[in-house]
């Protein structure tokens, strides 16, 4: 059975000039925020900062006093709120599994209301429970109160995925769990997120969680959006003391396990690399012209390594090919964490590594540059 969908994928969710007041108190004040398709955007801030209110305007649980929320350019008020919500997965901190329904009924509730037959529902529920690492045969027929907090949270996640929504709203989904379990669920969630490639708006008050999971982070305070950016932007160029306090930018090294190689690499273009077939002469020429002390040697699809000016000179004097003097070097992808990358550099006794994205050179990671930036 296919699911009637309002949108197959989300290209953007845009909140424009959103204001919501409760009495004289602003819950959100003139909020402008764009969530890009496929990203996980974190909303972070103290309680009462307006993050939950902002989140709930997206599925129309809260109607703003002014401003518009649009998904793929269409104002959400044009959609029937029930249909809209069935197209948006929703997970909350206290989970809210319905206590009178078995796990399978909880997960399959919307499917049943959508008119799926028993067999299709059971199959889908099985798949979903497997995805969140709950063996279906053990859990399907249990009641929520027979499950631990972590297991209930997984069920909550499975329930949100039932209708295969392209957009998820998650309000501190791991907030009530103990730290050990939280880390474990974050890891699993991160895997699922990568597999599904959905757009997610995620609320947390835990900055470490924000850095672990978020592509971009939006910081809210007193009903206003203070800054939005990648972890690196927030850490290295906080717009206010509040932001720097929240992201702890005075102790950047603390973020070594959450910052990614992509945040710290120096950009590198294809034309700054040398072709393995190049003669030493023309390699030297290119390096001198561009003022490079070293260069990376790579072919169409494979990376040979790096050479420094000295190596090239040596090759020229001895009349040998470029690849004879090329030294192998560590390769990273831009979503490797800094700590992993540095550990690899250390074990290989290298001071730099090449960052590849889709087999194309994207940048260079220098260990000394990383350390300087972090302190």
């Amino acid at each position, binding site marked *: 059975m296919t699911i009637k969908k309002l949108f197959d994928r989300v290209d953007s969710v845009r909140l424009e000039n959103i204001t919501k007041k409760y009495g004289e108190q602003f819950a959100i004040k003139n909020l402008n925020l764009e969530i890009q398709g496929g990203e996980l955007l974190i909303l972070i801030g103290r309680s009462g900062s307006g993050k939950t209110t902002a989140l709930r305007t997206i*599925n129309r*649980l809260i109607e703003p006093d002014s401003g518009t929320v649009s998904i793929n350019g269409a104002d959400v008020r044009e959609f029937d*709120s*029930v*249909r*809209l*919500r*069935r*197209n*948006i997965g*929703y997970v*909350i901190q*206290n*989970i*809210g599994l*319905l*206590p*009178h329904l078995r796990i399978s009924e909880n997960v399959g*509730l*919307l499917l049943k*209301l959508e008119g799926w037959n028993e067999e299709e529902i059971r199959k889908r529920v099985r798949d979903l429970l497997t995805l969140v690492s709950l063996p279906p045969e053990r859990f399907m027929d249990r009641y929520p*109160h027979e499950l631990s907090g972590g297991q209930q949270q997984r069920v909550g996640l499975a*329930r*949100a995925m039932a209708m295969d929504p392209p957009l998820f709203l998650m309000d501190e989904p791991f907030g009530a769990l103990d730290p050990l379990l939280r880390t474990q669920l974050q890891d699993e969630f991160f895997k699922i997120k990568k597999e599904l490639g959905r757009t997610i708006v995620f609320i947390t008050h835990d900055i470490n969680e924000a850095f672990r999971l978020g592509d971009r982070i939006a910081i809210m305070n007193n009903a206003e959006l203070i800054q939005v950016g990648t972890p690196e932007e927030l850490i290295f160029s906080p717009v206010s003391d509040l932001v720097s306090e929240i992201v702890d930018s005075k102790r950047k090294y603390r973020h070594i396990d959450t910052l990614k190689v992509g945040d710290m690499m120096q950009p590198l273009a294809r034309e700054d690399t040398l072709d393995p077939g190049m003669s030493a002469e023309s390699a030297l020429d290119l390096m001198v012209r561009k003022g490079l002390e070293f260069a990376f040697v790579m072919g169409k699809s494979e990376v040979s390594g790096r050479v420094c000016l000295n190596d090239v000179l040596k090759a020229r004097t001895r009349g040998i090919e470029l690849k004879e003097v090329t030294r192998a070097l560590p390769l990273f992808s831009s979503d490797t964490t800094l700590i992993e990358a540095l550990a690899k550099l250390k074990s290989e006794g290298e001071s730099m590594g090449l960052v590849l994205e889709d087999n194309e050179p994207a940048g260079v990671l220098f260990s000394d540059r990383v350390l300087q930036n972090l302190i």
Partner: protein
Amino acid sequence: MFLVALFFSILIGVFIGIFTYRNPKFAAPVLNGLNVVESVPDVALLVLLLPIFGIGTEPTIVASILYSLLPIARNTYTGLSNVPRVYIEIAEALGLTQREVLFQVRFPLSLPLIAGGIRIAVVFTMGVVTLGGLIAAGGLGAALQNGIQLYDMGTILVTGAWVGFLAVLLDGIAGIIESTLKARYGTWS
């Protein structure tokens, strides 16, 4: 007689409960009206119904229903209104319509309380049906009333004991049903 009365009490009581929940402005007048009915002594209620329904089972059944409506309707109303916020919120966020929230979430989660109301109604109905013997409704009540009229100690004791035994038994059964529902649908586990 007893079962007919109870059946209609539940049907009408639950209906009134749902109706007052969906139309809150009627809640106070309707429930207060039922309260007034409740405060009329049962003998007086039977007598009041005589001109309308004559004698026999009909006025007895009607009186039983009138008495039982309040506990059932009030418990249904209270149950529906007091389902924890979190379940309602998540149901709405998932995309349930108001009607689905009512019947898939609120109603099942109110069942323990509704059953509690029905249990009270069982005892009320028992009392009124027995009293129905006064107005020729038959049953154990008639035998009991005969015994009282004739001052026949033996009859009074035997029928009284039977009535008492039945009341305890039915209340017990209702109690078991109530606690089963509580275990199944209770929200405070």
